[in-house]
């Protein structure tokens, strides 16, 4: 408990914005967004939250043939106004984990705002533009960001971890917003670069970053080409995607067929 947060160095911050990305979210959004943001500030790791108490450490997960130990890392770079937190979603003691993060935010970083990024799996075609849904913890921040064309979310049900974080932020009077870019449901396991670009474009503009989008644009182009080939080969899939392009939803069986076919195709090609 006493040493749950380790700080390896003391970067010079000036009331930064803290952007929280989850390493295990749908559509690989967290990884892609974090990689681009971190690269844009030439960031490096300056601290972490110890995994004990927050993750089941009975062994280690293996993914993509590599052992993956849970991590929760803080990053800083060449901008005093931006800090990044890239983490696996804790499995245990959520309140304690978030309290450590918010303590760091409030007393060490003296952050002025927190952003969290998560994905909103949606019946949207991969060719369509993505909406960026948002949940704010203070009306002032909502007003401040009005010009960025977020769609306000309405929801009453089970809370996501992001909601828990921004609600605890509200209790400490830290302005926070969780962003929910739409991810095409049939790209939720292979990744949706267009969704990542949607959220990165916002940060590029809001924080005046110089994000290099060339790699992401190539990924989008390649993904579009592959799916265009699949549509040519498979009339049923073409029909499903065309239906989504017309803003018409698919039924459960159609969704499952589309997701499985796209998964198989992208994994083989």
């Amino acid at each position, binding site marked *: 408990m006493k040493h749950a947060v380790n700080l390896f160095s003391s970067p010079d911050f000036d009331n930064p914005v803290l952007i929280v990305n989850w390493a295990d979210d749908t559509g690989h959004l967290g990884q892609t967004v974090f990689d681009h943001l971190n690269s844009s500030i030439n960031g490096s790791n300056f601290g972490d939250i110890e995994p004990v108490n927050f993750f089941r450490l009975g062994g280690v997960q293996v993914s993509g043939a590599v052992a993956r130990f849970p991590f929760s890392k803080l990053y800083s770079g060449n901008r005093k106004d931006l800090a990044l937190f890239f983490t696996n979603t804790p499995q245990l003691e959520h309140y304690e984990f978030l309290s450590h993060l918010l303590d760091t935010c409030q007393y060490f970083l003296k952050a002025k705002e927190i952003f969290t990024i998560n994905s909103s799996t949606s019946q949207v075609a991969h060719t369509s533009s993505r909406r960026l849904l948002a949940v704010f913890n203070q009306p002032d921040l909502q007003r401040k960001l009005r010009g960025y064309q*977020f769609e306000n979310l309405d929801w009453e049900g089970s809370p996501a971890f992001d909601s828990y974080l921004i609600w605890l932020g509200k209790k400490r009077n830290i302005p926070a917003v969780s962003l929910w870019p739409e991810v095409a449901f049939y790209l939720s396991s292979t990744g949706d670069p267009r969704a990542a670009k949607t959220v990165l474009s916002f940060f590029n503009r809001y924080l005046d970053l110089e994000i290099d989008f060339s790699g992401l644009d190539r990924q989008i182009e390649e993904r579009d080409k592959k799916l265009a080939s699949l549509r040519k080969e498979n009339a049923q899939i073409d029909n499903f995607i065309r239906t989504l392009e017309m803003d018409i939803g698919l039924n459960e069986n159609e969704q499952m067929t589309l997701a499985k076919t796209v998964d198989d195709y992208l994994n083989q090609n």
Partner: protein
Amino acid sequence: MGIKLYSEPVLEKPELICSWPGIGRIGVLAVDYLRRSISAKELGEIEPWDFFEPNKVIIKNGLIEQIVFPENKFYYQKLNDRDVILFIGEEQPSDGTNPYASGEKAYKMANLILDVAEKYNCPRIYTSGAAVTQVHHTQKPKVWAVPNNDGLLGEVKKYENTVLMSGGEGASAQGSITGLNGLLIGAAQKRGIDALCLMGEVPYYLQASPWPYPKGAASVLEVLAANLGITIDTIPLLEMAKKMDEAIDKFLDQLHNEESVPVELRNNIKEAIDKLKETHKSKGPITDEDQKRIMEHLDDFFKRGEGGDETRS
């Protein structure tokens, strides 16, 4: 982490009565019914952060309005003979794999409740829950009682329709009380506070069911009301119990006609359950093996009704 009291009423040696959800929701049904019957007022709550995950968020027009946690609230009322504090928990703190409290968090919660008991000089604490026995659902459930010291045994023996977990009527002097119902009376023993767990019987073949068992709650309530020296109209609770009996009969008929279950097994289950009507008083001849076999099948049957997706935001 702590207790938040909304008011500081002056109470004269109140008795503390606690409940949490469990089999048949017997404890919560009984104590919540008592709360409504005596128009108990809110006294305070245990802050949920360290014990529970939020179970609901309310977001309107892009603004987070509220996050909702399971409630763990204290209530109080001044009665003619003695004052009373009630504690009703919507959930037991658990490690996520077991619905019943265990470990450090459970012990912390038990001690927070005992802190309130000591603050108000509570001379006695009751917990309430379910005792899974070979009672038939058409019979009036008894109340199984476990005090936390020998000095209470004589008093408990005088309670109506109550069995001590100390032999007699087929009851065993050995056993355990799962979750906070047990932990709290144990922790009270450590602080030298008299405490008693009252458990309404629930038929073993319903232990896996998601249904409430108001008949068991009514039996617990009768004992509590007698001890508090008050009269409580239990007719609405018993009417609810009557409806549950009908639902249970329908369920057992459905099970008996379930074609996916071998006919012989169906007949054995029906026979074993019917046998309980006559045999409960002497803790009849149903064997542990019979009970296990019936339960394995009933568990499967209840699980068929569960499931569904969760969405989060």
